[in-house]
């Protein structure tokens, strides 16, 4: 039977708006879940998908793509790749799967909300496919690490992390709940599809894909490249939404949503991506530095997209650019020092050669972040590896739930930005996290960081052992240790190695 061309039936098939007779429009589309901005339905009906696809086409294309990813996986499994892989690289996979797999399911629910509550038929249509995308991404990123659980129990965190009270999982959930799970369909689209997926998923999916291919892991490289091709398509839901908001006098609200979400996700992705790129991937396998990726994919591409839509760079752009050169270095050192709290095994991997690379990519690294590593390396070389592990607790940000850190050394920028609200003192890592809290304190005020939970009785007794148990470390799997069992420190004993590179140390 001959089939009509898609263009002959597409518009009429997806134009599913109608005039309700038995309920009011606001009952069908409650403003707080649908569109709190009051943009007329006629305006939403102008939503035109930048990328059109039919269900038949979707199934055909995605089946082929997924089959390709599964066949590469099968080939690599036969080669015993993972049994012989660099332990630090495996940590990158553990971190990725733990952080991302169930986040995809969360994103599926976000798209489902758009599918149900958007007043724009075209948006509902695209979100339906987005929902299917995220469902597939969740399943495939649970299936791939599942085979590795027998190799290393830490891979079980792919399924466990989002259900745990591990501090890193809490940080991820807090951001994702804010951006994807707890807002109306329109704002969710701006935050998720535009700020998150258009703005930042490239860095995780394309950047890490290149490093994975260099490491010979074509399974992971192929997998995340395939996922990113879906992300790039459904991310486009956000563009017409923004155009409609700007055209209807809601530019300020759109800008604010972008600014909140972009910062919140950046704080997470810098750890997820920046640390593996700049520390864990062996020097000769690194594609580019995190900063170079961020400059190209975010600093240039995303900024251009914002301006093209009539929006502006977030007000904190200079702070963001500074953060790109700071945050992940702080957390690389901190997560390594507090490694027993992690579900992965980070490597320190800051030997003399790696430090030279870091200094070249991030001028001043030795005088700031390097000073932190100096003390830990000296302890190891002096025969006290136990003193390379942190004691006590860092202060945690009441917004991003990440340790409050910044440059140490002579520039000394580490500080908490504090705010008193309803008699409680809140601490933030930055003026941006503090700004987000101040926009809507009622949204955030009751949430407790891991540090808060130590002092409000939720973690009892308040001992290192019970804190680790609370976070699932030693319960779901063994907690983190140095991936290379500190072997990288021996590079300082080699002839010609400069043991201490810090000026004035």
């Amino acid at each position, binding site marked *: 039977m001959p089939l009509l061309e898609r263009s002959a039936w597409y518009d009429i098939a997806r134009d599913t708006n109608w005039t309700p007779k038995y309920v009011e429009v606001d009952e069908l589309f409650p403003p707080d879940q649908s569109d709190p901005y009051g943009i007329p339905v006629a305006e939403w009906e102008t939503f035109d998908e930048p990328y059109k696809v039919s269900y038949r086409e979707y199934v055909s294309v995605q089946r082929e793509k997924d089959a390709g990813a599964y066949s590469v996986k099968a080939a690599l499994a036969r080669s015993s790749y993972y049994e012989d892989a660099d332990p630090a690289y495996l940590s990158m996979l553990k971190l990725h799967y733990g952080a991302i797999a169930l986040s995809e399911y969360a994103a599926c629910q976000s798209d489902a909300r758009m599918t149900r509550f958007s007043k724009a038929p075209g948006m509902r249509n695209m979100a339906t496919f987005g929902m299917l995308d995220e469902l597939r991404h969740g399943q495939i990123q649970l299936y791939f690490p599942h085979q590795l659980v027998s190799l290393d129990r830490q891979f079980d965190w792919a399924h466990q992390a989002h259900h745990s009270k591990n501090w890193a999982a809490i940080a991820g959930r807090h951001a994702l709940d804010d951006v994807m799970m707890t807002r109306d369909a329109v704002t969710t689209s701006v935050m998720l599809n535009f700020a998150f997926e258009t703005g930042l998923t490239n860095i995780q999916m394309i950047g890490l894909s290149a490093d994975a291919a260099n490491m010979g892991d074509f399974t992971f490289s192929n997998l995340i490249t395939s996922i990113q091709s879906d992300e790039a398509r459904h991310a486009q839901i956000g563009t017409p939404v923004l155009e409609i908001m700007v055209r209807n006098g809601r530019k300020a609200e759109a800008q604010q949503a972008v600014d909140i979400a972009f910062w919140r996700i950046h704080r997470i992705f810098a750890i997820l991506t920046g640390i593996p790129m700049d520390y864990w991937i062996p020097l000769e396998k690194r594609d580019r530095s995190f900063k170079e990726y961020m400059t190209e994919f975010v600093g240039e591409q995303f900024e251009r997209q914002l301006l093209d839509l009539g929006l502006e760079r977030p007000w904190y752009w200079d702070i963001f650019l500074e953060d790109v050169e700071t945050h992940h270095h702080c957390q690389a050192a901190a997560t390594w*020092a507090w490694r027993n709290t992690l579900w992965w095994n980070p490597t320190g991997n800051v030997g003399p050669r790696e430090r030279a690379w870091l200094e070249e990519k991030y001028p001043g690294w030795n005088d*700031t972040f390097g000073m*932190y590593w100096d003390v830990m390396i000296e302890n190891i070389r002096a025969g006290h590896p136990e003193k390379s592990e942190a004691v006590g607790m860092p*202060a945690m940000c009441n917004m991003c739930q990440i340790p409050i850190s910044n440059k140490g050394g002579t520039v000394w920028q580490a500080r908490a930005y504090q705010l008193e609200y309803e008699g409680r003192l809140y601490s933030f890592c930055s003026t941006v996290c503090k700004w987000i809290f101040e926009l809507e304190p009622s949204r955030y005020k009751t949430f407790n960081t891991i540090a808060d939970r130590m002092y409000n009785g939720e973690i009892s007794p308040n001992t290192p052992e019970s804190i680790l148990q609370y976070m699932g470390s030693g319960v779901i799997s063994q907690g983190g240790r140095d991936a290379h069992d500190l072997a990288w420190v021996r590079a300082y004993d080699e002839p010609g190695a400069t043991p201490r590179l810090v000026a004035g140390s």
Partner: protein
Amino acid sequence: MSSLAVIGRLEKDAHTRIIDVDTDFTMDQVVEACLAPAVGYQARHPKPGAMLRVRPTTDTDDADPFPRSMTVAEARLRHFQQIDIYVSDD
């Protein structure tokens, strides 16, 4: 006497840290409590041999230090209040 957690900001350290102190600690004892989990682990003493003082954290880093013998209770430090532990020129 009761315990209190403050946020210690040790000069040159990359972290702010949660420090348990007793309300009858003097500021010199607060300094010691702040140094304990940091110096020798991931931080150095900001200036070996120099005196360290405690002051409330401000945007301009120029608040007057608390008297060395003042107690935590007398300084009215609050739960999770941030304090600087810094090299004093005095």
